[in-house]
């Protein structure tokens, strides 16, 4: 789950990482109220989960009430790369002497954590990595040992941060690592991390991605979840425990397992069709889950045919078959359904469906045959 900048800053604050004083605003009046409270000049920042806000006119400096009104009014409702701005973050403007970059993420090939620190912040780190890789100090961190202050001090020296910033930065990086690990982040990034002319170091931006697998130990994430702007069908699917991603095509896809679902998308594409969605019903799905999956797909007006591709493992095919019949009773499904059923209890599953098969409920023996049949319906 990606956080908005303001949520990332609030998350950082919990771990003692210094950020600029500020608050959120959903209206021009609220923006004025926040600006008056934190003191001028302020920066009015669009809250969208996409890069390039500044270039799109979503970040503006305001020296007084009139300017806050002007900029807040312009930025609210602005469309930045398809993301409409509904919320602003207003914070006290900081004078900047230097901009740095700092982040922690998982180094998958090495199975360790990776810290990246650069004295050249404020620009995209990918660009720095490309043009001047020596400007980034990489730090491999053993997840068992973690990051201590002594290591952090060596690291800021290696990155050649300004002398005045080093001690504060070293301490801040230890806190950022805490936030990354204890806070179960997939990514914790500050760009820019700034040094002010009066020698204070603090985070001017926050990019945080949370690992949803850790939700069970973070009840406080509920507030972040509430602001997730999602496609209504994605939201409905999530509530039902399904892994759904909306796409542009006409073949509704239901499969068990992420790999098989991805492969189903590929195969549908190869035989001349296009998928309306990715939907993984997960391992161990029962009849109820299957019925919910059909309901979600059925609510998509683009869908002309539904392709159910199941290879039972932990999921039992007889349960899937029961779910299909249950869904057909619960909701009226106009689109034809093409099923391919194999694996655990497949024989039982096919037997359950056998008496109900007709021109709109069809089984095919293989994935490829089923894809061809589904695409024929979709393109008819």
């Amino acid at each position, binding site marked *: 789950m990606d956080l908005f900048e303001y949520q990332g800053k609030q998350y950082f604050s919990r771990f003692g990482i210094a950020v600029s004083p500020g608050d959120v605003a959903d209206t021009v009046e609220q923006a004025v109220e926040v600006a008056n409270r934190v003191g001028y000049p302020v920066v009015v920042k669009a809250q969208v989960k996409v890069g390039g806000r500044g270039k799109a006119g979503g970040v503006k400096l305001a020296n007084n009430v009139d300017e806050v009104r002007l900029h807040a009014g312009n930025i609210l409702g602005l469309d930045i790369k398809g993301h409409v701005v509904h919320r602003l973050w207003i914070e006290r403007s900081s004078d900047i002497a230097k901009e740095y970059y700092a982040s922690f993420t998982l180094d*998958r090939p090495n199975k360790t954590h990776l810290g990246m620190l650069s004295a050249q912040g404020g620009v995209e780190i990918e660009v720095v990595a490309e043009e001047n890789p020596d400007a980034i100090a990489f730090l491999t961190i053993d997840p068992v040992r973690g990051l201590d202050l002594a290591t952090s001090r060596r690291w800021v020296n290696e990155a050649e941060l300004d002398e005045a910033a080093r001690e504060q930065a070293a301490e801040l990086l230890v806190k950022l690592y805490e936030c990354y690990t204890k806070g179960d982040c997939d990514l914790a990034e500050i760009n820019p991390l700034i040094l002010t002319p009066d020698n204070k170091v603090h985070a001017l931006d926050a990019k945080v991605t949370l690992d949803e697998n850790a939700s069970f130990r973070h009840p406080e994430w509920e507030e972040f979840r509430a602001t997730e702007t999602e496609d209504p069908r994605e939201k409905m699917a999530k509530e039902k425990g399904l892994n759904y991603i909306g796409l542009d095509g006409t073949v509704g896809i239901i499969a068990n397992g992420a790999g098989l679902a991805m492969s189903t998308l590929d195969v549908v594409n190869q035989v001349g069709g296009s998928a309306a969605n*990715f939907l993984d019903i997960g391992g161990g799905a029962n009849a109820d889950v299957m019925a919910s999956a059909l309901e979600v797909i059925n609510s998509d007006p683009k869908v002309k045919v539904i392709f159910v591709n199941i290879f039972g493992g932990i999921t039992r095919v007889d349960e899937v078959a029961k779910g299909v019949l249950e869904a057909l009773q619960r909701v009226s499904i106009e689109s034809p359904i093409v099923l391919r059923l194999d694996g655990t209890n497949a024989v039982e599953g096919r037997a359950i469906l056998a008496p109900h098969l007709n021109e709109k409920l069809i089984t095919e023996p293989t994935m490829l045959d089923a894809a061809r049949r589904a695409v024929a319906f979709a393109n008819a």
Partner: protein
Amino acid sequence: MSIFVDENTKVIVQGLTGGQGKFHGLRNRDYGTKIVGGVTPGKGGTDVEGIPVFNTVKEAVEATGATASFVSVPPKFASDAILEAAAGGITFIVCITEGIPAHDEAVTYNRLVEEFPGVRLLGPNCPGIISPGKCNIGITSGDIALAGGPVGIVSRSGTLTYQALHELSQQGIGQTTCVGIGGDPVPGTNFIDCLAAFEADPETKAVMMIGEIGGSEEERAAEWIKLNMTKPVVSYIAGVTAPAGRKMGHAGAIISGSKGTAQAKMDALAEAGVHVCLNPTEAGQKMVEIVKAL
């Protein structure tokens, strides 16, 4: 021969008294796997359809001589269960649990490496391993596998592992061992571990490798194949049509920026001399050709 597990492997099930653990543990036993015990704290002394249950892994190992464990416990408890298995004397751990936080996986993996070198973890979030006719640990349906070799299978995706087994078995091509390494960001066993084991196994004559978008494990495997693999490899990579920036179910399956695309992986594998196929059926057919020509 087979890799990692065979007909002599004695297995305990951590979580045998839970719903999934019981269902799959008993299915594994029915398949012929030597399931010699279960572990559930507080339920020691009971049994599940004749399989004795112990309070700790250590007790189970002492009583049964087990060397492998099948971990089927909820995400919250999985890391502790894996480490308990290693400390209790288990050397091959299969963890099917889905949904373990990435930070827990990273810590657990590194603790295993540092404190218990020689212990192999398969998974988490994997379907398990099957050496057809000999041993099946995990959730794979045994009847889709065919004993006798000569093909080894390694796969990052659960259901595609079954699909691969099915494609080969349907054509009368048997498997030595089929390993599902799982789709999480920190897998205990990776492609290269399995490719190396298959390369060293005299009965495995060819390998089918099933990958997916995200990460760079397939590219690393391609490098390894280029330098070390003498046996033919057929591959299929899922996710050619996956959009960038969206997690496709598995925590690891995400195209970030220009990295982790199916095309990049397919190119790297083709460059290493691997037969790259566009769907599981095509991969199955290619393997039939290769095996017939052996």
